[in-house]
């Protein structure tokens, strides 16, 4: 074990000098890791024993900023170490493993890992790990500890250790009691159901983090979140559930697995910030594609998983066994900032009859369980193990959740691409009526997005507006543009869509990038690209925005389609094929 002493780390040099504790029983990997970390200018301490690591951590809680640990260690299971560190020291922990099996990754996530890297570790992956420190610090301390080594952090981290959890929970209980009274009054009327989507939950968590977990009050959270039409009551009850969840998580790791009611599906899909755009739904199409409620096998791709560096969107999903309300929360009380709200995805069997696979949390929520028709949302989101995104807009629940299939490869770098995929999925689902195309090119999908992503951006289950017109105008063109003229299927818009459908089960991941990058020459026009970027940028924050952009898109599409040689030219091209 080597210990290096650098007592003075200039605060303002962070992440330089960030103190990392590296644990791996494999000497080769440990040496390499140490060297890599040095290259990143971190301050490194190594040990090949988990026990020793724990001792080091316990001896001085403020000595390290981040822990990187191997999973398979002889003296102690890496996951166990992970849990202990998370609970006792509230430090970000990154898991390392030679095993890319999704089960392990899932386990890592559910045990609270900030990240899960595959060996061989590359320096690029390590260069960004400092973000986890910042995130965690923001969560626990309103940003005082940004530099990672400030003394102010000490007090907080001390508080956060051991008894803190319990104490906090007590405080929460008190808070909850206060809030509950308030909740009763206004809730006498039927309220539009709020679906706690990933987006929303993320905001919620960010707000809670900012306020300080112990001090978060619904009113303040609501203010910070700044979401239209979200009420304090919504926030309050969500907060209550969140706390319960956290309590449960830290209190009883096992219970999570035990419950048979809910099978939370991993957010393997949810890994890394899939800001899924929910697919509208209604069709059973995604069932198969949904890969059993979202458990999408990870492509055994070191590169991709290795790049799983910024699990911004990871909803710590554990198989939450327990009551619905626990379903979607973070598994680690301290990981507030990091995880999305994850919907509980009951595996296939939510309620008999319920076609919603991967039922979104809403069904689980007490408040959501009313027979409010808004549960359309649930219906909409059935296809994927996703989080029903909800805009606090009653009538139109925008299902904006990621498609399970696309998930595995959504990574920070590819997020945008992924989104496109989601949209394509969304599109395909909504265009179920289209005849199956013979075509095969993935490029279709991506281009489809380019062309008309916004059109499909609003997958209301019953809405057909954006889709059809868009189809007519844009898809064929997009299609042609995108694909080699060899494919025959291209004639109809429908074809295109169906190909998307057929694509459902495909892994779009790898192709997306290529697709996107091979940006079809020109025609894909400015309008489209603008749309695309505009679309991408927006996090479906507001339904209105999306609708507007869609409308604009349609208009611009329409314009383009007419005279544009590129588009017009296709028909003639087609004949040439």
């Amino acid at each position, binding site marked *: 074990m080597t210990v290096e002493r650098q007592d003075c780390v200039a605060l303002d040099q962070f992440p330089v000098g960030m103190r990392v504790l590296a644990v791996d029983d494999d000497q*080769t*990997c440990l040496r390499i890791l140490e*060297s890599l970390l040095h*290259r990143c200018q971190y301050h490194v301490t190594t040990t090949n024993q988990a026990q020793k690591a724990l001792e080091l951590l316990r001896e001085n809680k403020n000595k390290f900023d981040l822990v990187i640990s191997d999973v398979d260690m002889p003296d102690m299971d890496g996951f166990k170490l992970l849990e202990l560190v998370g609970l006792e020291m509230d430090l970000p922990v990154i898991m390392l*493993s030679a*095993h890319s099996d999704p089960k392990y990754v899932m386990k890592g996530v559910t045990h609270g890992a900030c990240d899960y890297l595959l060996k061989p*570790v590359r320096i690029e992956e390590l260069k960004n790990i400092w973000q986890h420190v910042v995130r965690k610090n923001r969560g626990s301390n309103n940003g005082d500890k940004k530099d990672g080594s400030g003394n102010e952090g000490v007090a907080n981290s001390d508080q956060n250790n051991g008894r803190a959890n319990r104490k906090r929970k007590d405080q929460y209980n008190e808070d909850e009691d206060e809030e509950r009274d308030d909740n009763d009054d206004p809730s006498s009327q039927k309220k539009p159901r709020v679906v706690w989507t990933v987006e929303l939950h993320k905001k919620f968590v960010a707000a809670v983090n900012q306020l300080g977990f112990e001090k978060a009050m619904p009113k303040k959270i609501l203010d910070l979140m700044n979401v239209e039409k979200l009420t304090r009551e919504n926030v309050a009850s969500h907060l209550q559930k969140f706390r319960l969840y956290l309590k449960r998580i830290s209190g009883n790791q096992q219970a999570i697995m035990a419950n048979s009611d809910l099978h939370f599906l991993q957010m393997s899909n949810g890994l890394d910030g899939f800001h899924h755009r929910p697919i509208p739904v209604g069709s059973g199409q995604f069932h198969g594609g949904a890969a059993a409620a979202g458990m999408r096998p990870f492509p055994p791709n070191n590169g991709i998983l290795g790049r799983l560096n910024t699990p911004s969107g990871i909803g710590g999903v554990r198989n939450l066994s327990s009551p619905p309300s626990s379903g979607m929360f973070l598994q680690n009380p301290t990981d507030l900032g990091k995880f999305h709200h994850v919907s509980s995805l009951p595996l296939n069997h939510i309620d008999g009859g319920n076609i919603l696979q991967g039922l979104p949390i809403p069904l689980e929520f007490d408040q959501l369980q009313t027979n409010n028709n808004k549960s359309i949302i649930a219906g909409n989101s059935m296809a994927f193990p996703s989080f029903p995104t909800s805009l606090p807009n009653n009538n139109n629940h925008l299902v904006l959740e990621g498609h399970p299939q696309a998930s595995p490869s959504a990574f920070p770098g590819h997020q945008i691409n992924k989104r496109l995929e989601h949209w394509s999925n969304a599109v395909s689902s909504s265009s179920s009526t289209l005849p199956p195309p013979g075509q095969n090119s993935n490029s279709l999908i991506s281009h489809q997005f380019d062309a008309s992503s916004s059109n499909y951006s609003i997958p209301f289950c019953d809405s057909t507006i954006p889709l059809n017109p868009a189809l007519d105008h844009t898809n064929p063109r997009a299609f042609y543009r995108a694909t080699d003229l060899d494919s025959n299927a291209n004639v109809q818009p429908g074809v295109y869509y169906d190909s998307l459908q057929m694509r459902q089960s495909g892994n779009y991941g790898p192709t997306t990038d290529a697709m996107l990058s091979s940006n079809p020459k020109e025609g894909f026009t400015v309008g489209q690209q603008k749309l695309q970027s505009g679309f991408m940028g927006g996090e479906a924050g507001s339904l209105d925005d999306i609708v507007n952009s869609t409308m604009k898109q349609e208009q611009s599409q329409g314009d383009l389609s007419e005279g544009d040689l590129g588009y017009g030219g296709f028909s003639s091209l087609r004949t040439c094929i």
Partner: protein
Amino acid sequence: MLGLGVDRLQADINRLLTSLFHQGVLDEQFLQLQQLQDETSPTFVYDVINIYFDESEKLLRSLRLLLMDREFSDYKKIGLHLNQLVGSSSSIGARRVRNVCVAFRSASELNNRPGCLRGLEVVEHEYHYLKNMMHELFQLEQQRLLAAGVRYPM
């Protein structure tokens, strides 16, 4: 004369490396390893690879002992050893060794004894080949350093 020797040796080294990359024995991870070598750790590659050899040989011996045992049944343990081998091999860029270890690991996951035995043989074979190549590389490198008049503590 000195200069010529160095160049020639360097060319030999490059040729050997290229060939190893070509054969898939090594991959770009090895390059990363080389990049980590600098003035502060001038023998980094050599050190790490030697650590790798030591650890791997222990694992391989252990694996062989386990599998040779008639009453062997601890596939899990084999899996753990292999996991470590996979991790370390991939970390130094020993791609072929890593791949055959993965295959071996799969056989162990299926509790397939004959498969494991075969797997072990293949791994041992690849491992020894790699080791020989690395030795050759180090020798060339050392000669090159000597020819260049550089002295490093080895």
